[in-house]
């Protein structure tokens, strides 16, 4: 019975997506619908257009802007977060302001960057930093604040001060929550990168998507969706690996409790 169940489960797990892909492929090849081009040609253009073709530079441009913005946001967010966590009174005082900034829908700041920087790269990176930093900052503060008091006391007994305290006590203890904040920040990064390219740009994935939309390039658009999906998938794989490597102690500790 159990073996049969396991077997059935595996078949379902592989079978359903495979069946879906086959059905969509056959249907989209057969149909004359303008909106749904054949799946095989979409998949082909993911490679021939985006990854190894004329749009490759756009993918790189978007990736670079995203990475730069996300990197700066991470460094700034973690440092400011730690600083705020050590100053509880100030943290409480600025909390409503931070909450307001965090609740601001990220894309609405894109026109602000356009006014300030025009369509230069610096404006796009600035706006990614300005929107992706909040979840990292707030999660870092919260993570540091909820470090086990016993750990803090111990580190005090050992007279760990300054950098050593931050580096070897606070940061590791807060890392699960910091990672959560960073993960939220990645999705903001993707959204803001693409929106900033949709609104004013001359390269990038968003720009090519916009061009495809204006010329009704359905294949380009669908393959663009797949490209963005791949980017999202890549990010979640990276975070899964980090999670397994860096936080195995955390899951272990939680499991043993």
């Amino acid at each position: 019975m159990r073996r049969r169940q396991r077997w059935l489960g595996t078949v379902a797990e592989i079978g359903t997506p495979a069946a879906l892909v086959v059905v969509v492929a056959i249907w989209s090849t057969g149909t004359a619908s303008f909106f749904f081009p054949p799946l095989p040609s979409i998949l082909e253009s993911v490679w021939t257009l985006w990854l190894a073709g004329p749009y490759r530079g756009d993918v790189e441009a978007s990736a670079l802007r995203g990475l730069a913005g996300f990197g700066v946001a991470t460094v700034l967010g973690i440092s400011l977060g730690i600083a705020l966590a050590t100053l509880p009174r100030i943290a409480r005082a600025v909390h409503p302001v931070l909450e307001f900034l965090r609740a601001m829908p990220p894309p609405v700041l894109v026109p602000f960057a356009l006014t300030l920087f025009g369509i230069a790269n610096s404006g796009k990176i600035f706006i990614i930093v300005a929107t992706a930093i909040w979840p990292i900052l707030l999660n870092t503060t919260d993570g540091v604040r909820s470090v086990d008091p016993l750990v803090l006391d111990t580190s005090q007994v050992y007279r760990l001060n300054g950098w050593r305290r931050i580096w070897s006590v606070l940061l590791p203890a807060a890392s699960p929550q910091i990672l959560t904040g960073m993960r939220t920040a990645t999705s903001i990064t993707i959204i803001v990168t693409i929106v900033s390219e949709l609104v004013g740009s001359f390269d990038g994935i968003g720009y090519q998507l916009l061009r495809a939309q204006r010329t009704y390039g359905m294949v380009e658009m669908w393959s663009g969706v797949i490209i963005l999906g791949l980017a999202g998938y890549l990010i979640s794989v990276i975070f899964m690996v980090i999670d397994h490597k860096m936080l195995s102690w955390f899951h272990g500790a939680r499991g043993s409790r």
Partner: protein
Amino acid sequence: MDKLEAGAPREGRLGRERRSLVLSAAASTSPGDLPVDDHDRPVEPVTGYGRLDAARPSLLRRWRDPLIVVLALGVLWELALATSLLSQEYFPRVGELAGALADLLGSQTFWTSVLYTLAGWGLGLLISVPVGVFAGIAIGSHWLTYRAFRPVVEFFRPIPSIAYLPLAVVALGSGMRLTIFLVALATSWHILIQTIYGVRSVEAVTMDTATVFRFPYRYRLFTVILPSALPSIMTGVRLASTIAIVLTITAGLVVGSPGIGSLVIRAQLAGQTTGMYALIFVAGLLGWGLDILVRRVQHSVLVWHPSTRKGTP
């Protein structure tokens, strides 16, 4: 809870058992022990400084420091403008900003845009919440459907919602239909995933107990499965609300669907910098207000849940 009670059968002989069942089921989904795949479960965003807020001081005392901060920021802003650290060409004076805000409040277009934005948010969620919850229960209830659909769900999950925008524009134009479709599509995904996790994380013992008591499925759904899954579903609703407002505004920015977003981009293109800042400020207030609203709803739906009760003295 009211809604749940309404859906649940009237107090019968099983009344007491039922209630304790609900509670034990609820206890099993405390944030401490999540389902197996918890590492890629969207974790609830940080909302505050928890323990610090626990002992509530008076209203004045609570808002004194934040008020000082806001005032200080205003003064710094004015100073930066006065010393030309910030260029007056790009940044408005505080007074100008207040004037622009006042102008907005008196304008008809502004209020219809706010209404459109709220409508995009609300109607989108009105579609996605029932769809997501229903599909989530259907998929999560049985191990076979769960395993069959898990790869499909995992495939679509990382696709950023923004990716669908150009496609949707070609299919639907740039009106309200576009906004509602986008919001519904993108948010139902998150609600679906959170519902599946919630349904999967119902404790086996609780389900077995329900089986022993021979609860019929409908009964079990409303007294065991849904209450246990509710915290997870509500987390999904909150995520969905954030995404909904982001998408509504993005649709306005990029293709000019009615709403605040299109007003912002129009102000930017027309060079009305001050008006643009006022609109951005309003968009922030809107996002903030909706977040607080959804948090309130979440709290009131989950008052009975241990994770909510823990914080209150």
